[in-house]
Each structure stands twice: as structure tokens, then as C-alpha cells.
């Protein structure tokens, strides 16, 4: 009797554990599938919404424009100003929708990873910024030879936004400085971009990487708050992380890590 118990009990326990593991695995797979499906549906929804909303917006701007042009002589000055407000707000909504569309495109893109020299990619981005703003004097230091295994198209968007932000938020500095480099953190290669610009209060930055979140007034620094949302989505899609260290008036440093084995 005793013999049979010592023989059977552990066996049963092992079987139960294996069953349990298999069950958990099955559940896990099921959940991942559901999540993937839900994400796909959300992206498709964002996409169709951004298309379908465009049409009525065209109508609003179209008829406001027609009204102010065709009735120019009979409209009072104030009425004309109101009409231009309507058109301005319409364009703002249009920008937001376009941004939504861009975000959904990022998420739908199939990653094509390759070895990318992000130092020279960053150089190009800075060159473009200098061409567009020849009056700005910005010291940019880029560590040479930084590479990642990532999607070139998406990395270009991420870098353009990070550098573009640093460029924008150092606008009011006498001596603007931007530094792009790498460091090690928990045995992992971490990239960073540091600026000596406006910075912001981290306490209010809970949703910093959410779409349409802004840390500054529109008349201080323009923008609709889509850049960092795109950056985060791109980094997350590469199995990485992005975070920030900042203080008001003391600039900001954005760190990101990209994992190639995803």
C-alpha cells in the first residue's frame, strides 16, 4: 500500500503540473491572438475614421471659403474674422486626423530590420533642420558609429522627431546644444539625445508619450503633440523602451533602447 502511494503520488503531481503549464500556454496564446486581433481592429478603425472624417471637413472649409469669397462685399469685418476662425479650427482638426492616420500607418507597417548607422542618419536629420532654419545657431555633437538593427523607415521618423523636438525646445536659448550618444544601463546599450532647452516638469509628464499630449502652450512652442507618441510606438514595435529625464529650464534627455532579438 505504502509502496504504491510513493510511486503514484509524484507522478500524478507531475502530470498535473504539466497539464497546468500546457493550459497556461494555451491561454497565453489565446490572449496574444485576441490582443493582436484587437490591435488590428483598432488600427483599421483609426484608418477608416481618418478617411471618412476628411470628407465633411472638406465641406466645412469649402463652404466657409465660398462664403467669405463670394460674399466678400456684404459680410461685416467681424463675420469675416469668424469665418477665418472656422477655417483655422477646421485645419487644426485636419492636422489631428492626419496625425492619427500617420500613427495607424506606423503600427501597420511590417518591420524590415537591417543594420543602420544612426549617427549618420542623425547627421542627415540635423542637416535638414539647418537648411530649414539657417538663422538658428545650434551646436550638435553626435557620437560616431552608433548602430542599431532596426527598420530604417521607422528609425528615421523616430530620430527626426527626437532631434526635431530638441531643436524646437532649444529655440529660446542663446547657445543651443544638442548631444546624441550612447551609454550603458543594466548591461544594455542605451542611446540618448540631450538638449539644454526648455525642459518640463516631469510630474505633469505622465502622458508625455500619449497622442496629442503637449507640455507647452501652442504660442510658446507650436505642435500638435504627436511626435513623441510616434517615437514611443516605433521604439515599442522594436521591443524597446523610451524614457526621459528633465527639469524645467534645464533641458531634457531622452533615452531609448532597441532590442534586436524580438
Amino acid at each position: 500500500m505504502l509502496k504504491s502511494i510513493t510511486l503514484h503520488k509524484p507522478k500524478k503531481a507531475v502530470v498535473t503540473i504539466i497539464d497546468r503549464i500546457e493550459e497556461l500556454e494555451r491561454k497565453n496564446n489565446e490572449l496574444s491572438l485576441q490582443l493582436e486581433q484587437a490591435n488590428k481592429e483598432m488600427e483599421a478603425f483609426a484608418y477608416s475614421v481618418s478617411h471618412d472624417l476628411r470628407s465633411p471637413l472638406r465641406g466645412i472649409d469649402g463652404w466657409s471659403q465660398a462664403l467669405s469669397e463670394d460674399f466678400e462685399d456684404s459680410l461685416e469685418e467681424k463675420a469675416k474674422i469668424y469665418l477665418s476662425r472656422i477655417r483655422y479650427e477646421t485645419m487644426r482638426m485636419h492636422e489631428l486626423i492626419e496625425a492619427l492616420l500617420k500613427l495607424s500607418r506606423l503600427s501597420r507597417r511590417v518591420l524590415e530590420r537591417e543594420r543602420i548607422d544612426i549617427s549618420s542618419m542623425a547627421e542627415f536629420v540635423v542637416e535638414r533642420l539647418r537648411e530649414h532654419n539657417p538663422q538658428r545657431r545650434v551646436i550638435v555633437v553626435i557620437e560616431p558609429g552608433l548602430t542599431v538593427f532596426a527598420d530604417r523607415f521607422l528609425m528615421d521618423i523616430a530620430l527626426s522627431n527626437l532631434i526635431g523636438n530638441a531643436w524646437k525646445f532649444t529655440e529660446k536659448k542663446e547657445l543651443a546644444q544638442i548631444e546624441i550618444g550612447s551609454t550603458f544601463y543594466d548591461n544594455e546599450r542605451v542611446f540618448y539625445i540631450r538638449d539644454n532647452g526648455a525642459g518640463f516638469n516631469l510630474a505633469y509628464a505622465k502622458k508625455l508619450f500619449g497622442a496629442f499630449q503637449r507640455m507647452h502652450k501652442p504660442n510658446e512652442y507650436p505642435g500638435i503633440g504627436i511626435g513623441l507618441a510616434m517615437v514611443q510606438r516605433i521604439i515599442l514595435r522594436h521591443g524597446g523602451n523610451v524614457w526621459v529625464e528633465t527639469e524645467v529650464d534645464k533641458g531634457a534627455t531622452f533615452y531609448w533602447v532597441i532590442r534586436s532579438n524580438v
Partner: protein
Amino acid sequence: MNKKKILLVEDNPSDIELTTRALEKSKISNSLVVKEDGAEALKYLFEECGKADYDDYPALILLDLKLPVVDGMEVLKQVKADDRTKRIPVVVLTTSSEEDDIDNSYDLGANAYIRKPVDNDRFIVAINYLGLFWLLVNEPSYRY
């Protein structure tokens, strides 16, 4: 200027009026035929045009993609597959910027693809350009 008609295939009444207005603002005086779904457009082109006592073929087709009954892509396909209509310039005029829509349109033989801008000033400029180009600058085929 070429005095033939322009065929506009568009289902949204507001868009029809805004396009009509933009053509007027651009001093394009060709008369406009509007068909509000794909089936109507095909019926017009294949049953009403080219007959002695009926309409001549249009000089230009402005085609929206999202249409009821028969969609724009199907209209484009049939227009470009038929000897009677294949040389008529077709300009796709749509709100979509989906890569598939652009590529499929070109693959089916679209002559131009324009995404209607939300800013109406820019829409009028676009209509002005396309009218000028397709009705004045471009040399059309005389055999359709």
C-alpha cells in the same frame, strides 16, 4: 480650349457643388456632366456617348473612388478596358491616400491621382492646374 464635356463621377452633393464652383473659379467653361454612382457613369459612357444624336465622349473624367453601386475602381477598369473610352484621360479625385488605392489606380491606367485637399484654396488651385493641363496643355487623342 477644348469644348468637350467634363464627366464628374461623384456621389457627395457638397463635393459636386464645390467641384463645380472650383471649375467656375478656374474659368473652365466646358460643360459638366455629373453622375452620382459608378453604374450611372458606365451607362452614360457606354450607352449614351458616341451616338450621333447623343453626347460626344467627355474630354476628361474626374473620378471619385468611393461610390455607391459600382465603385470608382471598377469604373476605371471598364473605361480603360474599352476601346471606345480607353484614351479619355481619367483623373482620380478622392480623399483616400491609401497606397493600395494609388497603386491600383495607376495599374488600371489612371492618368493622374489627386487627393482632394481639405483647404479649399488649395483645392481650387488643384482644379485650376488639372483643368489647364488636361484641357489645354495636353494633346488628346482624336480617335475616341
